[in-house]
């Protein structure tokens, strides 16, 4: 069920009606029912995957919780008779049992994800190697990717690890855990919520709050605007360039970099606006996933502001555990002896960074494009880390770092760098991507673009003017957001301003949204992840 379909709008309205009509204690159950219906609509057979993950996670977490309680009770009851050493040994033995449970559950659920998402990628690579040695090939598996599997698997993983880390107790009610895992607005493309955050409002009783519903609706409309007016129009030019590599090289690839960055931003942030806006209409607060990422001055800052919930997930559950593990701490000590203090200190961090970015790449998709994309991000981060002393020395000699022009340069540099790396999302394989990117330097052909080439990308003059105006509007809203919520600012202007914004957005989406043949309202890009 597409977010941008009439069916989905009707589905949300009906759920809202039920949600606020029934007694409040039933609200979370209505959301669970709606989430199950929404999920089943993607294929009733897919329910087996998500329900298996819910069940195994529930059982493992409950058992871990029991072991934690048992440890606490035993230690407090026997505090007097046990020596400090005996207490430590008992705690360690119990922790080991908990770890075994956690790891088994994680391996099982990651295994499901791996088999479904990565089997054909592995088979493809094996076949290519077999082909080199003239051996037989293996047939591909015919498995459809269940909706949101990467998102809900990661969400349940973080839940289980946090129970193991005693950050919060396990959820006693399996149906509530099922809602946390399958909450319909977030299942398609996140944000990847943490139990301790989402559970604060997900299961609560919510009064019908006109202001919250209005704010939520405004955000949903803004999301639709970005998706339907910008992303779904921009995609036409993007696809024309990608699918006709013989005709569109050089400056067109550069143009693709820029257009795809704008499309992805409008598509992904638009989708997240719809998600968070719908949740707000139900009185549920979700974590923000973006913080004006295209205003970042470095790639590390960019990754703190883009897809925030994914970045923090990888940091908390992969980067830190690897970086501070005993083998890494040992390696750090040895590396300092071998390579000197400065490089030795950084080596374990860099190793953990490489693993994290490899995982981030492969999480995005089963293809070499995403792996190379992840590793290129990693390379840029490590290079900028190594160059930090050089930058600092440069800024001491040339103190322009705080000028507006220099900041603008940094923002533009980061945008172009991220856009360049992102071209790997576009072409069908890594070789073709590098070949096409190379044509920017060998076959610029500005003349071709100016002499009518721009007119062949599938967009009319009206489309281009509309896109420029819409992107400018998004830019201005981002600028306004720096000093606080835009919706609050509109509210302060009075009811006429609120009504005018609603009307403009609604009419803008209806008139300027990209629909119809060739303008097919597309799936969100992050659906495929």
């Amino acid at each position: 069920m597409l977010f941008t379909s009439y069916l989905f709008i009707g589905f949300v309205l009906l759920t809202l009606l039920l949600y606020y009509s029934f007694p409040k204690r039933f609200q979370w159950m209505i959301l669970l029912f709606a989430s199950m219906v929404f999920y089943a609509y993607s294929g009733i057979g897919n329910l087996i995957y998500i329900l298996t993950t819910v069940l195994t996670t529930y059982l493992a977490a409950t058992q871990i919780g029991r072991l934690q309680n048992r440890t606490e009770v035993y230690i407090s009851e026997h505090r007097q008779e046990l020596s400090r050493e005996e207490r430590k040994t008992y705690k360690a033995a119990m922790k080991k049992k908990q770890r075994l449970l956690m790891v088994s559950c994680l391996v099982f659920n990651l295994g499901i994800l791996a088999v479904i998402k990565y089997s054909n990628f592995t088979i493809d690579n094996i076949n290519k190697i077999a082909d080199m040695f003239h051996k037989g090939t293996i047939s591909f598996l015919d498995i459809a990717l269940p909706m949101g599997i990467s998102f809900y698997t990661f969400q349940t993983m973080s839940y289980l690890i946090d129970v193991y880390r005693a950050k919060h107790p396990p959820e006693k009610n399996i149906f509530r855990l099922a809602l946390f895992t399958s909450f319909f607005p977030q299942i398609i493309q996140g944000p990847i919520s943490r139990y301790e955050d989402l559970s604060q409002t997900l299961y609560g009783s919510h009064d019908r709050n006109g202001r919250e519903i209005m704010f939520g609706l405004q955000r949903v409309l803004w999301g639709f605007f970005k998706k339907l007016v910008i992303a779904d129009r921009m995609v036409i030019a993007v696809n024309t360039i990608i699918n006709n590599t013989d005709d569109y090289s050089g400056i067109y690839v550069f143009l693709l970099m820029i257009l795809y960055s704008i499309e992805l931003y409008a598509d992904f942030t638009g989708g997240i606006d719809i998600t968070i806006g719908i949740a707000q209409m139900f009185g549920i607060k979700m974590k923000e996933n973006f913080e004006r990422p295209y205003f970042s001055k470095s790639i590390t800052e960019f990754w703190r502001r883009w897809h925030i919930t994914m970045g923090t997930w990888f940091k908390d559950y992969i980067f830190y555990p690897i970086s501070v593990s005993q083998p890494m701490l040992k390696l750090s000590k040895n590396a300092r002896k071998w390579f000197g203090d400065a490089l030795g200190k950084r080596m374990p961090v860099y190793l953990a960074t490489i693993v994290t970015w490899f995982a981030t790449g492969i999480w995005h998709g089963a293809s070499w494009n995403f792996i190379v994309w992840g590793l290129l991000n990693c390379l840029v981060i490590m290079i900028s880390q190594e160059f930090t002393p050089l930058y600092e020395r440069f800024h001491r000699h040339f103190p322009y770092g705080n000028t507006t022009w220099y900041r603008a340069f940094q923002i533009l540099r980061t945008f172009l760098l991220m856009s360049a790396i992102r071209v790997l999302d576009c072409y069908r394989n890594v070789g073709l991507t590098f070949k096409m990117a190379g044509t920017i330097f060998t076959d610029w052909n500005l003349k071709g673009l100016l002499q009518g080439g721009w007119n062949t990308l599938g967009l009319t003059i009206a489309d281009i003017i509309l896109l420029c105006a819409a992107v400018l509007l998004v830019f201005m809203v981002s600028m306004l957001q720096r000093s606080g919520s835009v919706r609050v600012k509109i509210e302060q202007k009075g009811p006429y301003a609120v009504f005018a914004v609603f009307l403009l957005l609604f009419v803008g989406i209806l008139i300027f949204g990209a629909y119809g043949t060739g303008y097919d309202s597309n799936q969100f890009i992050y659906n495929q992840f």
Partner: protein
Amino acid sequence: MNDLLEILQDLHPEIDYETNTQLVTGKIFDSFDIVTIIAEVNDAFDVTIPAEEIVEKNFDSARALYALITRLMDED
């Protein structure tokens, strides 16, 4: 505490660790800094800070970090 302050001074000499209580929330420490601190603390205090203790409140000030280290040493 002095050993810890020395480690932190090496990392960001410009910061006044006696008064600053927003080392993470104020974006002074990034993840690279935190891992470096953990490795140095491991060396200097022979104590391992586990991943689950890497939360803002434990790293937002030198005092909070020192409290974490002494707690972990006591647990050992």
